[in-house]
């Protein structure tokens, strides 16, 4: 019980500090400016919780100190089961009460009429939660966890229970709450009253649902256009990805290694760059367009701006992704199946058609759904190429920032988009679960994959080689584009764009005079802050999912995977709807960007962590536990050192994703905290293509340098060491072995 008392004391003291030493409410000047220090005991804005109750009539907060005193009162209870139950009850009550009062009492008083009629009107409302309020809430989450731990939940491991509770709490606040807020926002009026008119009007809007193009009318609704585009992009990128995967694994194509480099492209390419490069080739003033127009003496066309252009850009962007997925699928087909087929008198074509292809089918469906979801969520390419033919994600954006400023419309569009992607996600889960034929058994599955039938081999080469050349041309455009004065009009080479973006002058000190520096440094700063947090949250979650059994674990895992399928635009809209008003107000701050990245990129860390952790024998953790180490020490001393490659990967990936992402970010940037991608989109909208391209290529170079640097610094050496650890060549350390009895 001594351990239990010590941690309880620490938490109680923290709770006391949160009530007396930190500003309870949000400080306008920002917490980290520390200007609140001077006004802590003298102003209403910065006063701590206790003072708010005594001097500023926030009487409802009295419940918080009462609950803390109750916790202290429970401390001497001797029976652990009883004490645990009481602690858990007080903790839960604290979390619930703090959340409820935050939601119920806004700036001017009650938010809900129900509470107003129940308790009578309030003289004054309250601002958003500040450091004190947030810390107190976390204190109650911990008290709740300690209570459960003392009752023997999770084998009495307080660290694990706390980690699970905190994660569940954070996911609720930063994933669930925004989405719910968005749903509520769709049926609310500006003053917060229930008014479903806007929702109903938008839901029935022919601009969204019209099917007139089928019967020869002008144009279908944006929902159908987006769906059509997603299906076409999914199909095309799956077929191309399959062709690439077949070439990479089943032919004697001489540049297979180079082919695999392709898979790194989508990671380092900001999403709208492909679209941008396409306009340089096929836009009104593009090289190809002009060349053809001159040759045939016709008017340069605008065909690129619309679904066709978006489709090409998306297929270019997503083929590397489906390629990566399908390499695994194609290699996963057991060679012995194919050999068996051949010994049964089937020729190569029949073997491919009747054995290999059916075995790949679930993988192909999976690749299609990935392409489908990516296309739905894509924001950058439609923004650059969409023109007036928008898709759902761009329509959402214009509904928020455009002249319409119709949050209810944005919410409706976001709900429609979410419905599409989640359906695809559920289809993927339900339909494909248990249908995975990938036959990597780890048992002596020797033999070689058979070569492709001749006709098919020629066909895939004929598809793949031109497409590689096309991709290379596109990336060539990105590099060259930054050095060309004005596309189409004056094709002379210049350094002006780079100078405008990245000029530096020495005037006493270094002055960052280029227009890009501001957003560049903000991007780096935010990415650097969010990357370690993302990796931490992601890997901790992976640890809990792989190593611990707890109630609701499957649901938790499912919700995490599902958040993959939530398009960035939806996240962006939901964040501004949720975090623009009390109880949590963060719009316009760097914090909202960091949180958005952490919870948006967390699933990547989780997936990497799960993969890495499943390879570590569970008995390593257990050995550490039986050697008197706590779970926290086990993680620090045993699991983290062994997971170093996974950690590096998670860090790099979340860093890079923070730099390239646009869809959610564009809603959350502010004048003070502008991100590179959002800034580039602004440049594109102003027609400054040269600077935009120059900035984009700079980003690509920076990310290449970072990834290569990480590879060189830690990747190789650690990997070799890891190989030895994993016991690949030393079967005497069976790390991956499960206990048999």
């Amino acid at each position, binding site marked *: 019980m001594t351990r239990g008392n010590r941690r309880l004391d620490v938490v109680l003291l923290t709770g006391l500090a949160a009530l007396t030493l930190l500003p309870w409410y949000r400080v306008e000047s920002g917490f980290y400016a520390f200007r609140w220090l001077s006004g802590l005991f003298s102003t209403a804005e910065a006063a701590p919780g206790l003072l708010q109750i005594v001097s500023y009539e926030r009487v409802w907060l009295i419940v918080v100190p009462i609950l803390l005193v109750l916790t202290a009162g429970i401390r001497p209870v001797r029976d652990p089961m009883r004490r645990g139950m009481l602690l858990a009850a007080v903790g839960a009550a604290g979390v619930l009460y703090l959340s409820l009062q935050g939601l119920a009492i806004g700036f001017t008083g009650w938010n809900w009429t129900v509470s107003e009629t129940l308790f009578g009107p309030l003289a004054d409302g309250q601002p958003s939660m500040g450091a004190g309020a947030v810390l107190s809430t976390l204190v109650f989450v911990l008290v709740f966890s300690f209570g459960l731990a003392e009752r023997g939940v999770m*084998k009495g491991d307080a660290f694990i229970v706390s980690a699970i509770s905190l994660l569940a709490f954070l996911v609720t606040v930063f994933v669930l709450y925004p989405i719910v807020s968005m749903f509520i926002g769709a049926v609310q009026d500006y003053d917060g009253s229930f008014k479903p008119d806007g929702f109903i009007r938008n839901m029935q809007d022919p601009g969204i649902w019209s099917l007139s193009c089928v019967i020869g009318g002008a144009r279908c609704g944006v929902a159908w256009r987006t769906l059509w585009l997603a299906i076409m992009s999914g199909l095309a990128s799956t077929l191309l990805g399959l062709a690439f995967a077949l070439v990479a694994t089943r032919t004697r194509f001489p540049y297979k290694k180079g082919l695999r480099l392709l898979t790194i492209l989508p990671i380092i390419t900001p999403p709208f760059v492909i679209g941008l490069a396409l306009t340089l080739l096929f836009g009104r003033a593009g090289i190809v367009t002009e060349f053809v127009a001159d040759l045939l003496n016709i008017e340069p066309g605008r065909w690129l701006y619309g679904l066709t252009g978006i489709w090409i850009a998306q297929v270019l962007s997503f083929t590397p992704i489906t390629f990566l997925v399908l390499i695994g699928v194609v290699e996963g087909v057991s060679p012995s199946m194919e050999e068996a087929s051949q010994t049964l008198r089937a020729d190569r074509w029949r073997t491919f058609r009747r054995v290999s292809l059916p075995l790949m089918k679930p993988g192909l469906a999976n690749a299609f759904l990935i392409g489908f979801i990516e296309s739905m969520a894509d924001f950058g390419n439609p923004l650059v190429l969409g023109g007036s033919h928008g898709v759902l994600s761009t329509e959402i954006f214009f509904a928020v920032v455009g002249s319409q400023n119709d949050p209810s419309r944005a919410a409706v569009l976001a709900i429609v988009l979410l419905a599409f992607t989640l359906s695809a996600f559920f289809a993927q889960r339900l339909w494909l679960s248990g249908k995975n034929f990938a036959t990597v058994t780890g048992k002596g599955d020797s033999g070689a994959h058979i070569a492709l039938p001749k006709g098919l081999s020629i066909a895939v080469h004929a598809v793949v080689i031109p497409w590689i050349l096309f991709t290379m041309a596109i990336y060539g455009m990105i590099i060259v584009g930054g050095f060309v004065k004005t596309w189409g009009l004056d094709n002379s080479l210049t350094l002006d764009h780079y100078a405008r973006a990245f000029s530096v002058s020495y005037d006493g000190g270094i002055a960052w005079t280029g227009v890009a520096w501001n957003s560049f440094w903000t991007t780096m700063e935010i990415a650097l802050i969010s990357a370690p947090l993302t990796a931490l949250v992601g890997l901790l979650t992976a640890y809990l999912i792989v190593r611990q059994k707890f109630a609701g674990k499957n649901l938790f895992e499912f919700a995490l995977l599902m958040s993959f399928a939530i398009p960035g635009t939806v996240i962006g809209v939901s964040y501004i709807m949720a975090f623009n008003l009390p109880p949590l107000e963060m719009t316009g701050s760097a914090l909202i960007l960091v949180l958005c990245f952490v919870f948006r990129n967390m699933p990547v860390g989780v997936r990497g962590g799960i993969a890495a952790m499943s390879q570590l024998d569970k008995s*390593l953790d257990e050995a550490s*536990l*039986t050697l*008197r180490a706590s*779970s926290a020490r086990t993680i620090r*001393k045993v699991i983290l050192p062994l997971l170093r490659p996974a950690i590096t990967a998670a860090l790099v990936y979340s860093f890079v994703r923070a730099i390239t992402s646009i869809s959610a970010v564009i809603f959350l940037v502010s004048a003070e905290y502008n991100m590179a991608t959002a800034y580039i989109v602004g440049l594109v909208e102003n027609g400054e293509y040269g600077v935009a391209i120059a900035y984009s290529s700079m980003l690509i170079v920076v990310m290449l340098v970072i990834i290569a640097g990480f590879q060189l610094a830690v990747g190789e050496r650690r990997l070799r060491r890891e190989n030895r650890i994993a016991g690949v060549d030393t079967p005497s350390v069976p790390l991956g072995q499960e206990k048999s009895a």
Partner: protein
Amino acid sequence: MISPKAGSVEFRNIRKMFGSFTAISDLSLTIEPGTLVTLLGPSGCGKTTTLRMLAGLEHPTNGQILIGGKDVTMLPANERDVSMVFQSYALFPHMSAVENVAYGLESSGFSRREAREKAEEGLALVGLAGMGQRLPAELSGGQQQRVAVARALALEPQVLLLDEPLSNLDARLRRKVRTDIRDLQQKLGFTAVYVTHDQDEALAVSDRIIIMKEGEVAQSGAPRELYEAPASAFIADFMGEANVVSCEVIAIEDGRARIRVGGLEHQVPAGDARPGPARLAVRPRSILLAEGRKGEGLSGKVLHSAYLGDHVEYEVETEVGTFFIEDAAVDRVLPVASDATLGFSNRGIAIIGG
């Protein structure tokens, strides 16, 4: 000096459910301080679950666990005074041998220097002095196993738990390592709980063997007791193979029972047998095989025979059932379908209950 304390262990009405599956239904057992007790049983019998509950890696659904007289039922693994040698050894691959051994000591609050010293001592105890700087991957399987033992013992636990510690070693090494473990246990006098599914191993190292079946104790006792007086057909068959046949107990005199099996009469230790029908466990080596039909004994027909170097295996069909026989007379092999007569030797035959 590393001197583990010898603590007792008690399980009181332990029940363990995994979801709706009952792994252990109602287990009560006591382990005397300073003894080496083996939990033996086929896979899935709950022996590993029992060990893991003792370690604190699983918590029982109901019941109480006492270590050294103290109730530890709700304590997590890292607060229990036991330590464990894992089947896979679970050596931390990124730490050297001495770091592995020092790990638990540092966790329990020793200074880095003390922990190192004690760790070196622990390695010396298992005969690995001077190998401390090696990584686990640079040690042989047997050496890794000894590091795992040193790591567990260095904590001077009240009880040392061993989970199939020999299963990853090759057959030759197994015999040596099990002797080493037993010697170490007797020298230092600690309490050890040893899980295995190999009855030879259990017979060789144990003071007492607890045989488990489907989450319950099937029988417990000294190795000799279990082998010579199995309480059931399951025990008889599990502790070395046995032919189980029906017999008739005719009379009991001076602690010996006269029994009749088919046409064969014989005398065996009575145990708590009573006159009347009973069952008999007969070891394959306790059957005397003669060629042809004799007047006395159990006559039968050879169904199958195989020459195995130091003995010949037979299956012989008789009126009371088919016997599996290991015959030491390797000079002659009775051909299939020939007549044979079976007799019983004086050892390895027991009346069993149930």
